[in-house]
């Protein structure tokens, strides 16, 4: 990501060509997804998890902070959305803000404790806090519904004053999530390429160097974690709408591990869009391989091991390496033919 942002003129743009193409392709999904044997709900899931994985990658890829309890913030967002709708006010915008605010608040609280830590200790502390939130969600029956989850969440209409859209249909909801996704990706792209994002990336390379340069490393680490938690919570709020319920399951250690896997398999460490590739692969693999065998996690686990061993930079990394090699090869070929022309080699 750092390499990309330095060399590419896209870094300064609000909307890049890649982004536009991606949004346009995604906009056509409801037109053909049922024809290839899948269903619009999968599209919704992919978009929501992509937003979540991009938010997560803010911490893992951009800041280099191993957070292994991130499911907690996604789940808190889902619960906050549900509770706001059921207990306070049934307004879509307010409920989504509540989701982001609730998760962001939890993120700040956790970040205050852990931001002096590094490496494995940081990872362990995020797991511990993730487990605390997960236990709270499971045990607070009266508030969260315990293991049964928080039911009766509705897809509230998107009210824009003059017009109001009904989102109960999966296709309508898909387009709503896509619009949110578009805004979210543009905002995250700007954030990563802003001066703030550069400092965070510098901290990833060396905390010591960044602090010697006069940056308050601790504060930057708190802020990036809280931001990531807030966006994850926002995605969680959307997920509660998609599922029409909020369950403690997404907060478990396993599910927190899945978002790490998606991000790494896709190539979150080297590419902004890596996490999206990973989510797409993970969720379609779940449905396609899952329909063939009931042990799809086994195959995905093996694939994950292979990627960690042989391509730790993930699919996006492999693609960019292939592209680079290809263009280098083409260059070399052009070079040799030029040499041949000049020196008439071989004769």
């Amino acid at each position, binding site marked *: 990501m750092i390499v990309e942002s330095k060399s590419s003129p896209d870094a300064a743009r609000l909307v890049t060509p890649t982004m536009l193409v991606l949004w346009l392709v995604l906009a056509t999904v409801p037109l053909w997804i049922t024809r290839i044997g899948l269903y619009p709900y999968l599209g919704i899931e992919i978009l929501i998890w992509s937003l979540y994985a991009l938010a997560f990658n803010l911490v893992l890829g951009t800041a280099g902070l191993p957070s292994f309890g991130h499911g907690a913030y996604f789940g808190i967002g889902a619960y906050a959305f549900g509770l706001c709708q059921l207990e306070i006010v049934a307004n879509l915008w307010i409920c989504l803000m509540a989701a982001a605010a609730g998760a962001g608040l939890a993120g700040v609280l956790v970040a205050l404790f852990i931001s002096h830590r590094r490496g494995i*200790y940081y990872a362990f502390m995020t797991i511990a806090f993730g487990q605390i939130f997960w236990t709270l969600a499971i045990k607070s029956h009266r508030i969260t519904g315990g293991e049964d989850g928080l039911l009766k969440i509705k897809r509230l209409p998107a009210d824009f004053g003059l017009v109001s859209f009904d989102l109960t249909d999966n296709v309508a909801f898909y387009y709503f999530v896509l619009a949110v996704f578009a805004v979210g990706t543009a905002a995250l792209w700007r954030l990563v390429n802003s001066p703030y994002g550069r400092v965070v990336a510098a901290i990833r390379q060396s905390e010591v160097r960044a602090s010697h340069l006069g940056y308050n490393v601790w504060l930057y680490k708190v802020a990036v974690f809280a931001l990531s938690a807030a966006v994850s919570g926002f995605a969680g709020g959307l997920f509660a709408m998609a599922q029409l319920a909020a369950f403690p399951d997404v907060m478990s250690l396993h599910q927190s591990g899945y978002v790490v896997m998606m991000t790494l398999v896709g190539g979150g460490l080297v590419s902004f869009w890596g996490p999206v590739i990973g989510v797409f692969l993970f969720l379609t693999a779940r449905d396609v391989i899952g329909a063939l065998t009931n042990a799809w996690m086994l195959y995905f686990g093996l694939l994950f091991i292979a990627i960690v061993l042989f391509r730790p930079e993930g699919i996006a990394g492999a693609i960019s390496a292939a592209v680079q090699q290809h263009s280098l090869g083409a260059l070399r070929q052009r070079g040799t033919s030029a040499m041949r022309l000049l020196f008439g080699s071989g004769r």
Partner: protein
Amino acid sequence: MFDLLPHLLNGLTLGLLFALIALGFMLIVGLMEQINLAHGSLFALGAYVAMQLTGPRPPLPAELAKAWLALPLGWRYAATLVIAPVIVSLVGMLIELCMRRTYGKDPLYGLLLTFGAAMVIEEMIRLVWGTRDYVLQVPSAINGGFLFGDLIWSTYRFYAAGISAGVIGLVWLLIEKTSFGATVKAGAHDSEIVRALGINLSRLRLLVFVFGTMLAAIAGIIVAPIWGIRPHMGVDAVIPAFLVIVLGGVGSFWGAVVAGLLAGLCVGLAGAYASEWSLLSMYILLVAVVTFRARGLWGKKSVLEA
């Protein structure tokens, strides 16, 4: 005070079990500076393999199975306590061989690799044994309960606590009092010198990993009759294991033992007042300790922080 006694004893037993579960995890962290997230799955695998071996249908040829089943349960159980960890250690060996590629890189890679391994093992368990719960048969000598004052106490818990203490002691002897332990520690401290002395370091690491795996499996077999055998038991084990390591401090043997006891006591005593929330108390203890002592109770600076 007397009302608290059962909770205190419960907590101590649980603490010893926590320490036993964490022991193999700690060895690999302390001596190889690798986080083995598959520890919990190997723990579960140990329990499943032991259940299969002591159960009514051991996976053996017909004649052998007959001879095996003719043995009294006590003998079978004792033999399984050795055989099952050896079988599970083969899986550990496989993981270590894969893991070699990650040595010298960011410890994150080893952690992710073992997360993948944990997933694969867990799915394998689900494929072979399904999602239902199993019970591990134990000999009648350590089954049942006895009266302790006016309390009924489970014999098995005493046995489990005793075995845990014994295994912890043995591991301490091995690490601190034998030349094997000395070499392994030296290898962790300065791999260059150890290699220069003509010691096969990669074999040494394989041995440490296999040993850690066997400890995981033994812990699984000991804990199984208390927690029950189900696919989720691996996750239930790996969380206290990492908690004990962080609380005690990475790389400290006695830190892990004391942290295990502390966490167990904490859960046990919290169980007296708010049984619903007893597990939460463990995490709160961890957060409280680590807020004031960043590296846990007896932690040393390690490469894992970089």
